[in-house]
């Protein structure tokens, strides 16, 4: 069991997401940086999409039993029993030790524990959906004095399993790759070029639902209302003010704003790890032709 001493702000339990219910209006949710969650789970011997803790601000826990842990995602400091530890490494925590985690700048950080966080599956997933008040721990963010049950261990020797490391390199090209559409024809021909040449700042309105960006406006060529359609993760919606909104893990399933371009699946996490005030650049991915 993990005992929550200081919960941090909007700390939630997330797994690989609640796929298969978007036709009923249920967002997928899941980790904002799915790669980091999968890496953390792999380090502690879990299935890649087991439930872990998504952290966005300083938090403190206590290991109530012996646990195998790993911390991944955005740069953070972490200490177990007062010892500073590297990220992206499996670590053994003795019973009763204090675990303190703090982001260095911002972004999303993942704590995985061998056995996974044991909360009930809701519609096939343990991910928290805060607006819907379901999933995770009673549909809410973690609070002080919460006791997090951990799934049963299958490793016999947690101490021996500690010390596994993953090497991570920053992406070679820091640009976020997009493909045009599905509504690129709603925009002036120069809009895609603008999107991929200008810099866009992540505004304070950036949360698990979507990131509002600010930069060179992306004007429409067509007026009128788009008929609402299903929208994918990473869609870059352009409302009437011409400023992009990128849809993130808790995004609504349908939308009525035209989508100029869509961030490719593997790059959504790179965008997710940008904090308010930081700038992002987009680039066209290898094109996929419509027929």
């Amino acid at each position: 069991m993990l005992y929550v001493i200081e919960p941090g702000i909007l700390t939630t339990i997330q797994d690989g997401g609640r796929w298969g219910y978007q036709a009923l209006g249920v967002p997928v949710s899941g980790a904002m940086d799915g790669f980091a969650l999968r890496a953390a789970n792999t380090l502690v011997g879990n299935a890649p999409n087991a439930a872990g803790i998504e952290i966005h601000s300083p938090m403190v826990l206590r290991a109530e039993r012996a646990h195998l842990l790993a911390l991944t995602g955005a740069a953070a400091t972490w200490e177990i029993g007062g010892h500073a530890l590297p990220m992206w490494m499996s670590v053994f925590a003795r019973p009763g030790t204090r675990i303190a985690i703090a982001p260095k700048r911002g972004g999303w950080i993942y704590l995985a524990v061998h056995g996974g966080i044991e909360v009930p599956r809701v519609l096939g997933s343990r991910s928290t959906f805060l607006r819907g008040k379901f999933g995770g721990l009673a549909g809410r963010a973690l609070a002080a004095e919460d006791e997090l049950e951990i799934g049963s261990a299958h490793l016999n020797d947690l101490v021996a399993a500690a010390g596994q490391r993953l090497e991570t390199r920053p992406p070679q090209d820091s640009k976020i790759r997009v493909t045009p559409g599905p509504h690129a024809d709603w925009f002036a021909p120069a809009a895609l070029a603008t999107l991929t040449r200008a810099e866009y700042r992540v505004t304070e309105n950036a949360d698990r639902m979507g990131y509002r960006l600010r930069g060179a406006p992306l004007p429409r060529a067509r007026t009128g209302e788009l008929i609402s359609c299903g929208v994918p993760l990473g869609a870059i919606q352009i409302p009437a003010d011409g400023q992009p909104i990128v849809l993130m893990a808790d995004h609504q399933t349908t939308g009525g704003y035209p989508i100029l371009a869509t961030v490719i699946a593997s790059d959504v996490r790179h965008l997710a790890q940008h904090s308010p005030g930081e700038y992002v650049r987009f680039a066209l991915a290898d094109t996929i032709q419509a027929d």
Partner: protein
Amino acid sequence: MIYAPPRLVPAGDAAILIEFADEIDDAINDRVHACAQTLRAQNHPAVRDLIPAYASLLVCFDPEQIAFAKMRVWLRQALDAPPTRAPFAPRRIEIPTRYGGAEGPDLAFLAEFSGLTERQVVELHASVEYRVYLIGFAPGFAYLGSVPDAIAAPRLATPRTRVPVGSVGIAGKQTGIYPLESPGGWRIIGRTTWHLFDPACEPPALLQPGDRVRFAPLSAL
């Protein structure tokens, strides 16, 4: 305009938007839901989600399990094949609704907007069998159409910060029921105690795309 054959439009590298038309039409919406049902029945291992809407169907898939081009070929074949299932059979559902008063704060505005009495507004709203064109916005939120022109009032200029769960609203030709307490700009004319969404139920959403819905006024005004 109706697209024949339907357009397969890339929506990133993990989704394809099947566009059947660029207009709202009952026959097209039937086709969208029939197609969703056909694809669901095929149970392709790489398909993660299907989102039917008014005139389109978004197919979300795992790009690590299937290449984009292969997914598109598979979709094209699935669309060309004759339907493998019985035609879409809508369910009929009646939702008991209390109109006006504290539960329907915009009913008086609707009367003013339409030049009808409040009772006539209620009768008109309850006279129509609405179609669930799609579910979106929030878990279990059904976009129901079409509201008679006389009471098709526009959204509030400034949305309310808090609309109670179960509130029945109008936004233009659409009507709908708030499944969760949330902010909202629809004109609220009544409320139901029915739960539109409960993740513990199977299925979790009371209404499903394609269903037919009537509102049953609970008491005389």
